[in-house]
């Protein structure tokens, strides 16, 4: 880690470390928002803002990757919470829900198994993506999702069972 590279408000985080995992972080953000490119870019940018300002402070207790993934996860949760509130208000007012919230873009290309992953329940899908695609351990993935390792393992086993049977059928 070069000294000039270190963030002022986050002494354990460097720009080069973030750059090295940028693709992975963006991929994670992409799957957080149903593959909407602009939303994913906003999420990643917002995550970098949080790190730059020190509002999300990394203290080295986990790996940096786990930490940044968790920041993206929290930001996307907040975004959907705000969106849900807005939708409720719109429904109360008797108007049509916003098109941006109603539309969920599908990835342009996908193979059968990837499709099967997308059809899994949210938590199972998340842990499978984090472990198989983002190279996190089950414990790290559980930390990102904000659940205990035991719970994470249950989601992981169930998801793997579903996917295995899917693979066997294909």
């Amino acid at each position, binding site marked *: 880690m070069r000294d000039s590279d270190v963030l002022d408000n986050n002494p354990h985080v460097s*720009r080069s470390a*973030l*750059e090295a995992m*940028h*693709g992975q972080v*963006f*991929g994670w953000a*992409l799957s957080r928002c149903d*593959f909407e*490119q602009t939303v*994913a*870019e906003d999420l*990643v*940018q*917002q995550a*970098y*803002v949080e790190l*730059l*300002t020190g509002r999300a402070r990394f203290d080295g207790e986990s790996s940096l990757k786990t930490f940044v993934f968790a920041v993206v996860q929290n930001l996307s949760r907040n975004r959907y919470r705000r969106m849900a509130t807005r939708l409720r208000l719109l429904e109360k007012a008797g108007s049509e829900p916003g098109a941006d919230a109603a539309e969920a873009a599908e*990835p*342009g*290309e*996908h*193979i059968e*198994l*990837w*499709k099967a*992953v997308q059809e899994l329940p949210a938590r199972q899908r998340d842990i*499978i*993506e984090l472990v*198989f*695609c983002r190279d996190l351990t089950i414990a790290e993935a559980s930390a990102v999702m904000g659940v205990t390792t035991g719970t994470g393992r249950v989601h992981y086993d169930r998801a*793997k069972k579903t*996917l*295995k049977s899917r*693979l066997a059928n294909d």
Partner: protein
Amino acid sequence: MTDIDNELHDALRNGQAMAEAGRIPDFDTVWARAECTVVHRRRRVRAAGGIAAAAALVAVAFVSQFRQTEHEWQFVNPDDFASSTSWLAPSDVLLPKHRIDIYEEIPVLIESTDEDGGTLL
């Protein structure tokens, strides 16, 4: 990792790579935008702080204008009394000048002796 794990790993990796292909934005661009947001946010916070400080100053000035000045206590100099030639009862000053009747709340004294033909025994 078992064979099935490896198979899952490869398949998912490929699927993920296809879903994300060509979509990852340039790091420098995203980073520059994030830095720009931070700078704008700091400016906004500073401006808001300045406005709040100015408003607080105006409020303090406004309040202090209407605040009553405290009376300064003075000690009595006994030498001044020794040479004085006149005296005024407090009621003579308070009643006409400040409309304060100091006898207003003095209780009526109850007679301690019985009356006999208009005169007290």
